[in-house]
């Protein structure tokens, strides 16, 4: 079925053999990076209790935990920007996808932390 009312943006996505080589190189670099970050995360997750002395566990866990969250966001950025090619799209579509989602989720996280703090305090009071 041929339709002539649609511009085939997908045809612009073609690239040459030469350009493909560059893209593949980038893909493998990102892969190596993601694998390395995951290896570090697993190692820390499994053995952080043995790495840090017992008396510093409470403080060390805070660092390890926030380290995990930051590394996760870094991984997510690479997946979205490189693997999902959002970095190659126009800024308008990037904003349409990321901004509403980001704003809503930040609000949701804020409200959940606020409320769960309250529930936490109440449970402690009336336990």
């Amino acid at each position, binding site marked *: 079925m041929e339709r002539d009312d*649609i511009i085939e943006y997908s045809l612009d*996505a073609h690239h040459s053999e030469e350009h493909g080589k560059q893209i593949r190189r980038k893909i493998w670099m990102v892969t190596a990076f993601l694998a390395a970050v995951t290896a570090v995360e697993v190692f820390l997750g499994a053995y952080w209790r043995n790495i840090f002395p017992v008396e510093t566990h409470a403080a060390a866990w805070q660092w390890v935990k926030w380290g995990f969250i930051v590394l996760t966001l870094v991984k997510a950025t690479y997946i979205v920007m490189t693997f999902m090619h959002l970095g190659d799209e126009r800024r308008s579509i990037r904003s349409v996808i990321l901004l509403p989602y980001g704003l809503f989720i930040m609000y949701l996280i804020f409200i959940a932390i606020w409320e769960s703090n309250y529930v936490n305090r109440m449970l402690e009071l009336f336990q």
Partner: protein
Amino acid sequence: MSGEASKSIPNDVLWGGGRSPFSVSYGKMMMWFFLVSDALTFSALLVGYGFARHSMPPGGSWPMGESVFRALPFLHGDYPLIYVAFMTAVLIFSSVTMVLAVEAGHRMYKQGVIKWLFLTVIGGAIFVGSQVWEWGHFIHGSGGSITMMDGSKYWVHNDEHDTENPTEAAGFHLVKAEGDRYLYGTEEVEGNEAKAIFAERVAYTHGASPMWSSEGTIENEYGQPQYANFFFFITGFHGFHVFSGVIINFIILIMVARGVFHRRGHYEMVEKAGLYWHFVDLVWVFVFTFFYLV
């Protein structure tokens, strides 16, 4: 003071001019919108998990991932997080093969697309199969805990993760529980002394099914039953996404092999399926962090 409506805007900057300001095709844009809505669902589930966990009073019994997920198939002993690391690696590499399939499609290289897409399907199938085993082991349990007459609690350990006859299994020992958090405690009891304590138990809690504890609360091997509820819901919802992704990729693979996209002149369908597949990987990155690591 004229409004936007009365302003004359050249037709070629509007969609009426035949081009979208986003410069992507309709199908790709809709796939992105679907992914945003799906991302909101997953975010809500993970935030709900965080809410439940953070609401627990300090010193609560919410378990830590490295204590719960420490088994490997066909092997005895404890290997914290190794199995889930394997699953993560499989999913990341199937994401890589997918992006390579998309790249081959941009060069109109049909054999390349078939090769990489086939590997992607295999990777996804391995992931789903791994999750089946993990669920099975989670339901079965790794050792559990016994409660004594005086209300004290011991964690049951053995190398075979046997919950039917734990005293008969190799490496059987008990650890006196400090607080309610899964596996926390340092004082070990071994040998016949441990067997004697086990024989005098009033309750043996093991596996993911909730049981009544001696204090009249409901708990399972891992502590709060909510933990298992969230585990099944979130990894199940994600696993269903992986499963449907494998099916979609398989259908696209057949279409590629039959030359449908080659005749169409572009492989954008592979790219759209790829977006979904990368999204599944993206969600797993967050599930992995918030369920297994943090």
